[in-house]
């Protein structure tokens, strides 16, 4: 298995998965999965439960080691990196941010403190101990708070936020990490229609200078994102293309959309 991104790909992809397989106790969660995300691309991933969407994210972010296959990340400065060699924290610091399906903010800290923790830089123990909030950093947090419409809740404990607000806070935390690649698992779950559409708008803005991989079930949300769609099934790619073309694909209808 070569560890290089093939030269024939014109635009060097930011994320390159090739032949990735993972099995748990004989169950093949990922089966020879290959995927290519270009820099600045937004990609939606859909697929039935158990298709391997979350496992794929686990593999990219260093939580799960693949049995076989290549996972490469094209870092701005360090170029091609084999992500399977890093743990979760290292992958995060390389510039891959992840948002979970279940909103996972730190409930016993305030909204402000959640964003402060997420803010890029200062991950070392000593740096954290001696950390002071400069005005610049404070201003950045303030900007993020405005972006996610939580400026009035800055000093509230994250536990006291509504479900939708927690989702937004987590998106805010993700942005604060200033990643190059964002992996986002079901961002619209539990949101009102209005919030969903606002989130789609936000992602489109983000896509201007980030690469995004969005896992979602909500077809209206995917339609609003207006991007290339990959359909996963039983651990590998079933179809890829525009939402319209995918929706016409008979196989996709059979395993996912038709039900």
């Amino acid at each position, binding site marked *: 298995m070569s560890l290089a991104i093939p030269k024939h790909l014109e635009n060097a992809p930011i994320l390159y998965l090739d032949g990735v397989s993972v099995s748990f106790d004989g169950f093949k969660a990922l089966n020879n999965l290959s995927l290519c995300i270009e820099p600045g691309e937004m990609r939606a991933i859909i697929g039935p439960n158990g298709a391997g969407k979350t496992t794929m994210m686990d593999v990219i972010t260093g939580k799960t080691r693949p049995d076989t296959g290549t996972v490469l990340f094209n870092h701005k400065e360090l170029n091609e990196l084999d992500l399977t060699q890093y743990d*979760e*924290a290292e992958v995060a610091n390389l510039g891959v941010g992840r948002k979970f399906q279940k909103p*996972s903010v*730190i409930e016993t800290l305030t909204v402000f403190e959640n964003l*402060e*923790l997420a803010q890029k830089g200062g991950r070392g123990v000593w740096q954290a101990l001696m*950390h002071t909030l400069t005005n610049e950093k404070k201003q950045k947090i303030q900007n993020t708070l405005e972006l996610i419409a939580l400026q009035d809740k800055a000093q509230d404990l994250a536990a006291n936020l509504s479900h939708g607000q927690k989702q937004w806070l987590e998106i805010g935390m993700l942005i604060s990490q200033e990643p190059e690649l964002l992996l986002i698992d079901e961002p619209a779950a539990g949101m009102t229609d209005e919030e969903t559409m606002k989130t789609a708008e936000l992602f489109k803005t983000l896509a201007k200078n980030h690469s995004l991989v969005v896992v979602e079930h909500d077809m209206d949300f995917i339609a609003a994102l207006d991007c290339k769609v990959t359909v996963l099934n039983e651990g590998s790619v079933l179809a890829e293309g525009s939402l319209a073309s995918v929706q016409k694909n008979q196989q996709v209808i059979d395993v996912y959309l038709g039900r």
Partner: protein
Amino acid sequence: MSTLHNTSENPKALKLGPIGTLLMGDKGGQRLIMALIAVAIIFPFCNLVFSEGSFLHVSTYTLTLTGKYLCYALLALSVDLIWGYCGILSLGHGAFFALGGYAMGMYLMRQIGDRGVYGNAELPDFMVFLDWKELPWYWFGFDQFWFASIMVLVVPGILAFVFGWLAFRSRVTGVYLSIITQALTYALMLAFFRNDMGFGGNNGLTDFKDILGFDLQSNTTRCALFIASALAVILGYLISRFITTSKLGRVLVSIRDAEMRTRFLGYKVEYYKLFVFVVSAMMAGVAGALYVPQVGIINPGEFTPIYSIEIIIWVAIGGRGTLFGAVIGAIAVNYAKTYFTGAFAELWLFMLGGLFVMATLYLPKGIVGFIEDAKQGNGTSNRFYLLFKNTPFSKWFSKQSSKGSV
């Protein structure tokens, strides 16, 4: 909760200096430190100035006993730092306390010199008794106070570092970690019981004469040790407070509540745990080092797992994750222990167990959490408070709060 998460900067901070800034918004901590300073002045003063018979006299017995409790308070602080803030439930923290105690005990042994029973200037009595000819290499340097003082920090620190490195890197958490900390202290207990370990075996180290040339039996030395213990608790509190109010403290809380999430934010969880675990072990070591000259003995019994579990009970009863709650818990439970083991010796362990069950059921946030909830009239999460609802007790608490707000 708000007192724990004071991040907003305040222009006043500049006037207050570093210590004032640390304690800003921490009423419990301010009161605790005031009380400790007061006790550190009044107890020795009343012991030395007023003569025995006088109403204001504090007996040397009470002074030493309280000094012992202050060492326990520092030990409880060290446990609260890792358990309350980082979720590391160490059931073997007594080991670090005992190691610090042994390091100090070794210095005190060497101080005895030729005044021992066998009159050997070089070897402690138990080595002469074992027919050893020369001092083992690991006893070298312990005739120097500065060396022993460094070892008080280094020995528990290194053990915590090695143990923590292995455990945290392998992601051993929760009850599994608790069990291996328990095994750690048990293994050390068995090792220290052996005569050929060279630490006095079963009898441990005792018969100390003096420290830095001052007679350990004299009242002034005891007062000095008492003051040193109170200062150590204050210093330990300030260090813990510095850690928990820094960004590192918030990383610890986030590890406690959502470890995986913290990793995905880019924090190397194992390094953070290791740091706080080592700091905590060193604090426990200092507590042990101050404890030994006051009680006059250190033996392998200090490694007994049940002592380590007792520390957890002090912290739980005082109020986990508040720092000053740990101090209150340690002192309150130990005063109770001294009283009840005197009055009904055979019942104490049942009472301690009962106390823990009661605290878990009715005081989940400990004494400190209970008082805070009661003051805010927020009894919904507190079944103990509900028991006293509509009784004079609840009125007393609500009066307190109205006074406070005026």
